[in-house]
């Protein structure tokens, strides 16, 4: 049986992880794969971590992704990248934004925001435990494209480049999902992400 691909998306409530997963789902569905997406709602709206699992392949059974299973983690915030990193399998790919959003224990001064996350991930790449690391300041990229809320779409652009789907499928998905008045800026942000790394 061909392998199931597992993608974990993590972020902070309000960052648009649900929209990002919709765009990817649209592309996967257009290519006739079986597909499962699992979200945890509930208290996420109140500034908590948001988590979405996306799995596709010929037949997908479990909607869960477990530690050590993900082929890709896409994190729209740096601490969330670090939080969900253990879910990658050895040699997996991390796509993340370097944006920092402090969680309440840090805001209250009870805990420190880890300052060495990028360096630690680069060390793991050097050791080979982390296959690839694609870190961009997605918020800055999206701002340059005229729509700061498109940061996740820029990240999807980076992830799209890693996946084996044609670019046109993503453009179709953006057209189908993003409201018309935001489409131009979102397309621009997507392409900026898609073209950010030349070594993919």
């Amino acid at each position: 049986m061909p392998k199931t691909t597992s993608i974990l998306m993590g972020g902070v409530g309000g960052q648009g992880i649900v929209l990002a997963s919709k765009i990817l789902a649209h592309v996967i569905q257009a290519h006739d794969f079986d597909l499962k997406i699992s979200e945890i709602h509930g208290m996420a709206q109140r500034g908590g971590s948001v988590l979405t699992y996306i799995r596709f392949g010929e037949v997908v059974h479990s909607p869960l992704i477990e530690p050590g299973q993900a082929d890709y983690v896409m994190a729209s915030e740096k601490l969330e990248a670090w939080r969900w990193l253990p879910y990658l399998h050895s040699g997996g790919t991390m796509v993340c934004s370097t944006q920092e959003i402090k969680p309440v224990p840090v805001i209250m001064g009870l805990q420190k925001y880890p300052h060495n996350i990028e360096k630690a991930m680069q060390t793991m790449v050097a050791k080979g435990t982390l296959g690839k690391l694609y870190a961009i300041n997605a918020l800055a990229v999206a701002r340059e494209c005229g729509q700061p809320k498109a940061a996740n779409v820029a990240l999807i652009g980076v992830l799209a480049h890693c996946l084996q789907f044609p670019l046109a499928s993503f453009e179709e998905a953006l057209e189908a999902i993003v409201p018309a008045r935001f489409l131009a800026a979102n397309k621009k942000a997507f392409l900026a992400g898609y073209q950010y790394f030349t070594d993919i």
Partner: protein
Amino acid sequence: MKKLLSGNEAIARGAYEAGVHFAVAYPGTPSTEILEDVATYDEIDAQWSSNEKVALEVGIGAALAGSRVLVAMKHVGVNVATDPLMTFSYIGVNGGLVLVAADDPGMHSSQNEQDSRQYARFAKIPMLEPADSQEAKDFVQSALEISEEFDTPVMLKTSTRISHAQSLVSVRERADIAIRPYEKDMSKHVMMPAYARPRHVAVEERLEFLREYAEQTTLNRIEWRQKKIGVICAGICYQQVREALPDASVLKLGMCYPLPTKLLAEFAANVDQLYVVEELDPFMEEQIKVMGIEVQGKGLFPLTGEISPNLIAKKILGQPLTQSLAADMDSEAPVPARPPVLCPGCPHRSVFYTLHKQKMVVSGDIGCYTLGALQPLDAMDTCICMGASISTGLGFEKGNPALKGKVAAVIGDSTFFHSGMTGLADVVYNQGTTLTMVLDNRITAMTGHQHHPGTGSTLKGNPTVALDIGAICRALGVKRVREVDPYDLAALDAVIREEAAAPEPSVIIARRACALLDKSIKEVYVIDTERCISCGLCMKLGCPAIVKDNKTMSIDVSLCVGCGVCVQVCRSNAIVKAGDQDA
């Protein structure tokens, strides 16, 4: 093309396709989206009821009157609806009725993780358990057919991983189902002893017919693969078993109550090692063991939380499927958690800040405001179930005279309509002095902003009467009913002091719309670093917009909504409107 639907959307679609005429619910995670989605179909009349008991009772009436009916609630909602459910089992239906119970193993957003399957056995009614969105949709149809064929309510059980997971679904057109004619039948519908005794006999007979049905139905199936390992499972556990043990034979039960004795015996006789994989209670395991079949279940698997493919592989094959990368992570410090928090500008914040400051014993309730228990607000002593705040608060002052005048019950507007009113009647009737605070943010906020009897709008978006909480409290006999704007800290502090000390029942309605719905633009605030003495008083509000870095405080203007509560806390006048900073 197939549609990508969540389990909840699929249940709504199933109701549409099965010709459901009427649907009713009270919101609760992970069930809420079912009715929100049902409401988008013009052909179905759908409503939020004030609580789950009311929802089921309205549903019973609609089914007896002749409609096909869907009723939905979260697992703990079934507790509220149990009273009508137990006798509804005796009465049966006219048009079919399916009761959806959405469980939350792992307690992603619940106060407990009880196993709803026990209710099917308790009420002696069948229960179906879908394993993905396709089944969630199809099983609504099956449930209604069983309901009408066997004259019984049927439960459909989901869990968070079914309700909130999306998978591909083939859809059909809506069946044209006529509303059945209504016929008065006292011996079946009026449950007093003389009529109820023969109905109990009918219930027991019905259960025997359903046991026979369970043997034949395609809802239950054996998937033969290698016969070394055989697993009995239902719902999400089926998917986890298939993931972990792709070569194992599986008895997949789409109907998890009553169980098919012969099918189970046949399966057991043909596999070397037999397991039952189920979340929470050993519901199937105990019944299977009573049949005299040897099976391994809770000896291997926990009674708590969710069951994952890794856990199944570890317990049955001896090793997990995947290894966490955590061991390879070079980390200097633990990863800070990102707990949920009251939003910036949340009107509940100042209430809990004040209750904490006044050292009140706070009897809490279910909603966003349960977050008032967290640091630094730290202002909650109990949280039990919907509506418990007022009655438990009365119990505190009855149980310990030293607490009289020190007890405040906090309850949201939607929760007040759900089951707070009866508790308040009890406070008045039994001469309590409890202070009740209704945190009226004009919406059911926690579950995603659903309407309730106080909002003036129905689920379908039609304008309706907005019930007046203050008038209700006065009608219940409370003489001291006051309203306060929770953004006004001094007024809030004074009114809580006065009403807590009052030697009779009192109600304070702290009224302001949920900050997520308040679209009015207010000027944001910043901290004037020259005036700020780093005393940390503003940090006691626990506002996510106020950030502490080493010893200095600052306001994240991208989060601040300009509520101005922190301005009233600061003794150095250091928090100023962003536009006034340079003035």
